[in-house]
């Protein structure tokens, strides 16, 4: 399909060649330029033992220190993790997760004591972790309306089709719509420090600054944001809360700058995890302003989990008939964890990366040695070898 091979062009050719007084016409001689004659100056590296030796050694020499650095940094990061799913009879949360009555109005609380071996300095990040939760399921990931979350009034009233079947309930638009929002994590975690003197001190948890700045300020906006005296209750008038939520979206937090769509817990949840086992930032424990004390000194702590009664309105075949005393993970054999971690420049604890660097560096170094030997043995053959094999 490419060639234009009728030879009109050939005929042309003859016109020019054989025309009267031939030779005076423009010659077809190709230009003798480096580009057209394919003689551009070129660097032609040949990968042989001799030439790449330095590269291998250099990679080795660079990677090993990086790896050591990473490893050490990672080791300095302290991390503590406690599972509070409550599937075991022995678990303190077992009762709450199993026996909690659906019509009880008082929240069920379970208390999990734990002991920190080391003091945690600087800011401590508190995460909740879920496993086996496929936030990356294709249809789940899609089940949201970004323009609604961006404060678009039209989308608020008419959520996108992507949100189906979590778009409308009782003919009212759901805000925020979609399966992601509907399944928002809603356990309440509280930390107490058991002072050696017996008092139980609640550790202050900051819920501001856990979401990306751009998410909070650009991507997520309450409807009518920017207007003076915005009243979230009025703005969300005519919408209904997601089926699984206890409270409407405008009652997520008392603070106005953390309410509605810009509630940071909500924003964090909405950033769907890539893998089925994930952790999400829950709170930050700020280091005390004086800096003298560690944020969390060595000692006994208690994690209190407050279960809020929710009726799972999963729209599956068993609509409204499932009783979920806590955030439901048993339906997918999931686990719930609480993680405490300090951070460094490299983020959370990640010993793997350091090990990887060290390994790769060593391998390169080793290969370099091997190549050196090879180069010594075979290097001279090249120029005399017989090409015709």
């Amino acid at each position: 399909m490419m060639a234009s091979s009728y030879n009109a062009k050939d005929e042309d050719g003859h016109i020019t060649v054989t025309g009267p007084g031939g030779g005076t016409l423009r010659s077809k001689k190709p230009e003798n330029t480096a580009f057209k004659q394919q003689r551009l100056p070129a660097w032609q590296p040949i990968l042989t033992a001799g030439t790449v030796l330095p590269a291998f050694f250099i990679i080795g020499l660079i990677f090993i220190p990086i790896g050591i650095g990473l490893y050490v940094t990672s080791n300095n990061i302290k991390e503590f993790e406690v599972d509070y799913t409550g599937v075991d009879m022995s678990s303190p949360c077992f009762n709450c997760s199993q026996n909690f009555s659906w019509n009880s109005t008082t929240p069920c609380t379970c208390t999990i004591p734990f002991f920190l071996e080391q003091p945690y300095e600087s800011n401590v990040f508190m995460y909740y972790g879920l496993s086996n939760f496929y936030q990356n399921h294709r249809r789940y990931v899609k089940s949201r309306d970004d323009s609604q979350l961006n404060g678009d009034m039209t989308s608020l009233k008419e959520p996108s089709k992507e949100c189906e079947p979590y778009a409308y309930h009782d003919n009212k638009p759901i805000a925020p719509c979609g399966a992601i929002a509907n399944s928002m994590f809603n356990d309440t975690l509280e930390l107490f420090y058991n002072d050696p003197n017996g008092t139980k001190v609640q550790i202050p948890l900051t819920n501001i600054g856990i979401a990306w700045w751009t998410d909070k300020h650009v991507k997520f906006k309450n409807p009518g944001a920017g207007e003076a005296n915005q009243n979230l209750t009025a703005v969300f008038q005519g919408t209904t809360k997601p089926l699984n939520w206890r409270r409407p979206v405008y009652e997520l937090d008392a603070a106005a700058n953390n309410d509605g769509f810009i509630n940071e817990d909500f924003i964090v949840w909405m950033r769907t995890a890539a893998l089925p086992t994930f952790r999400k930032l829950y709170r930050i424990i700020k280091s005390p302003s004086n800096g003298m004390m560690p944020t969390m000194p060595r000692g006994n702590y208690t994690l209190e989990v407050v279960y809020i009664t929710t009726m799972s309105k999963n729209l599956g075949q068993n609509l409204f008939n499932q009783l979920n005393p806590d955030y439901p993970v048993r339906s997918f054999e999931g686990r719930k964890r609480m993680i405490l971690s300090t951070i460094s420049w490299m983020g959370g604890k990640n010993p793997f990366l350091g090990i990887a660097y060290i390994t790769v560096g060593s391998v390169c170094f080793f290969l370099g040695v091997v190549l050196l030997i090879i180069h010594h043995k075979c290097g001279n053959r090249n120029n005399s070898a017989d090409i015709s094999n």
Partner: protein
Amino acid sequence: MTWWSPLALVRDALRGQRAREKDLRNLVSNLPYEGLEKRKQPNRYFPGNAIKTTKYTLLFFIPVNLFEQFHRLANIYFVGLAILNFVPVVNAFQPEIALIPICVIMCLTALKDAWEDFRRYQSDRKLNNTPCFIYSRRAKKFMERRWRDVRVGDFVKVISNEIVPADLLLLHTSDRNGITGAVIHYNRFPRALTAGLPVLSSCGGRIANGAYTVEKPDKEKVGAGIESLLLRGCTVRNTDHAVGFVVYAGHETKSMLNNNGPRYKRSKLERKLNKDVIFCVILLFFMCLNGSLGHFLWLQALPTVPPYLVPDSNGHLDSPGLSSFYMFFTMIILLQVLIPISLYVSIELVKIGQIFFLTNDIDLYDEATDSRIQCKALNITEDLGQIEYIFSDKTGTLTENKMVFRRCSIMGTEYPHKENAVRLAVLEESETEEDVLFNKRPQPGKTRWSLDTEDTNFEDRQHQHGSRRKCKVAGNAQSNVAFSSPLISGVSHSLQSNNQMDPLSNMPKKSGYFSNIFTSWQRKPNRNRTISEDSVVEGDIFNLPVIMEEPGDINGLRRCSLYAPTNSDQPATTSDNLRYEAESPDEAALVYAAKAYGFTLLARTPDSVTVRLPSGEDLVFEVLDTLTFDSFRKRMSILVRDPITKNYVLYSKGADYAIMELLGTPYAENLRGNQKKIAADTQHHLDCYAKDGLRTLCFTKKVVSDREYKSWFVNRQRALAAIENREQLVMDTSVQIETNLCLLEVRRYNEDPRNVDTTQDISLVIDGLTLTMALSSDLQDRFVELAKNCRSVLCCRVTPLQKSSVVKVVREKLKVMTLAVGDGANDVNMIQAADIGIGISGQEGMQAVMASDFAISRFKHLKKLLLVHGHWCYTRLANMIIYFFYKNVAYVNLLFWYQFFCGFSGTTMIDYWLMIFFNLFFTSAPPIMFGIMDRDISEEILLGVPELYRTGQGEGAYQGSDIDIFSFGTPLNTISLFNILLHLSIEIKAWTAVHLIIIVGSVVLFFVVTLAYSATCVTCNPPSNPYWVLSRQMADPMFYLLCLITTVVALLPRYTFHVLRNSIAPSPLMQARHLNRLDPLTRSEWIKEWRSLRGGGQVKSSRLSTPPSPTLETPVGMYPQSLTESDIMGDEFTLNVISENHQRHLHL
């Protein structure tokens, strides 16, 4: 325009249809109807001369182009996928987004098509607007018009060196002997009437057999054959102007009918590529099956319905079986990248680039004809790098049709002159200089002559004879100088009459006549040329004693007239300054040779031949008839009337076996002992010549009695005028008179065997008759087996059909890539049968070029074309395709493995837009550039070490590549980009600025686009939120550390593998690349050494022990001229045809 009833319109249309389809075409001159409106024109049913080769029109470009594009299966596949994406239950992306790639691809293709079509349009327009002269009755003269104005029924005048605008029935030429047809080498004689134009009133003809009749006003019908037709595209030569009647115009002309549509050949690589694509489809199928099953199992394993399982809009959740069934299709959409959508368009772009470089190669440009290489089939460039067997036409192709008169045998006496050869070369050299003086045109192929370095003192000889030769051949092609002079000095004194014979003979017709005994295909470049003459004169009619008694002049003259008449030579003003244009180089060779001996052909008209004798006397022979060459008779004859004896004499020229056969009877019956000896001697000489690889021709003469002539003439006239069976009758009459000839002489021509490498191994020589048997079905296998073990195989005296069947048999039986080279019409079959057909333009017309895939102007260009460009094109394209597969497979693997972590739900962790851009923009330019410009080994090495070519013949570069990346991280896209680009940079063999710019450009493009996209797009692409991801990532040092380690880990194995392989067991290519790095001096040194080691270099000549001798029994049915060389070689170096003799000197 008056009112026409619809009925009349319909009737008119029907009539037009009938008129066009009728076998017999009745045409009436337009002249009486000049100026009338269209519907009164008699020839209105026939199309005009404007041509249109464009495929599209402006208005319908889009639908037609779409239609064309959907002929490609891949496009349908991708559109199908995109449509599938619109089905809600299975869609993986936004439906609209899925359309982007296919749209981009199709737009690119459409743009390319549009550009090509525009080029065609321009060329059409140029052609249609070419000026020409049409006779106007009103103006009473030829008016200048455009080609597009030419209509059937017009009278058109074509000036010398102009191109014939339509198929014309030749009516008149300014010179009565005018001959046109430089492009298609046939003599054209003005048939019908030479007088005025309008005499002709109707002209009917069928293009099938090319019979035409012209009816004069007096109702007398005159027949005209195909030889009276001037075909569109031919150039008029040798006459100031020619006038013709337009029989076919525009798209009905022969050249247009022969050139319908582009040739689409599929290259071997492409066929293999298609297989791999199918493999990819199978792989895709299994991947999707995996995804589907995985999804099913995953769903099954769930105890209850988890919150992340989203039901459909009605709140209904599909059963695991159904949703895994849907998942299969989702996976297909998701993983479709596995089938490289942009591969096809990339390949096309790469090929365009390769062809650009190919046509711009200055080494493939021929100064003499001012022509570059022409690529007719644009899609098989890489096949050039995989050729295993070359089939070459010998006659003219290898030799470039340069013929020199070498020796002759007259009356059983041979005149060998080794020293003449020496002189000859000098003559050529000196002559070249003269040429410069006399020729405006560049001399093609002069360089060739310089190869015969043995000659020294020709100059003297030349002066001795007093006639300077300029053997320049006008026009491009036939630059042959035949100088046989040296011999004459030796011989001529004793045997003057005989000598004179040589010079006189102009070989009139096609070169076909000449090709005769060909025994050894392998010729040494340094072989001595010898010139000898022998003539055998048959005793009965014209015996030696007689000749001797008579003044030599007369004899010479006779022969002169004999041969000359058919010739197309056009004498210039003085004999010193003669310039001959001949139909074929052999004719020219003879005329020039004759001139060297003092017999100068002065003029040649259809009716007479004027020859100047050495004595200065001019003799005019009356030409009574010419029996042109045809492949059945394999000879041509001319009937002349001797000006002195007034006898009717018939001279014939033809292939030795054709002629010897005719002599058979008289020899056997009534030859005297002496004559028998002559015949035997002649035969012996023929054999000797054959051994030397010379071409031979035999000449005979017959004196025809008055009575005989008259009766024959009557028959002849009847035959010529006949409409039906004209050719048959004409041929019969020819045969009728061509019996009982007597053998005059045997001439030898030497051709330039420059291009042939000689090897010491066994060669197989087979002639056409034997070949017929060898190719029969039961012997085929054994023939191929035998041929395989030979160094080369030589087929002589084969028909064009046999040539192509040899090619086909080899191609089918051995499953190899074949290439056929040829320059003449007789090679067309072969060229079309081979995987790659190469036509050599210039020497024998354009038929071969028209049928070929590549047209080169010199045989020697084949070397660079194959060894350098073939290798490059192949390695580039092969590497690029592998790389494309690699790229896509690597990318798909990312998506595929991710499915294990997302419940096989078809999630992509990369934003759709970026994913699509990734393939379309970020990673597509580097491989294309790689495919166009990479240069693994320099051309010097490739030419110097032709063994490297073998790497392409097997599978070579195009083998699977390993997939070496699997990593998972947030900035996957970035990492895979780095991986893919860096991987490419491992493969790139030669880094130029362009490479660097494009690679760096791709990376920059990626970051710029991604950053811009992620920074600005807050909600523009609903389901995915790329907002600020990359920006945030790039602020994180971990991002860079991750990129670094992943890339290194991913590439390390491949890198190490390359290094180890190159160090421990370097491939030939790699060694050549080492060689490449040496400085040029050492390099050429090395190559020389290498050559001598391999026994290459200038090989000593080895003669074949048993050349096939020309036999009298050769059946008449065999085509005499065509010799096919099929160069079949075994496991040794397979390309030896083109290897040696032109060792390039390296540029230091």
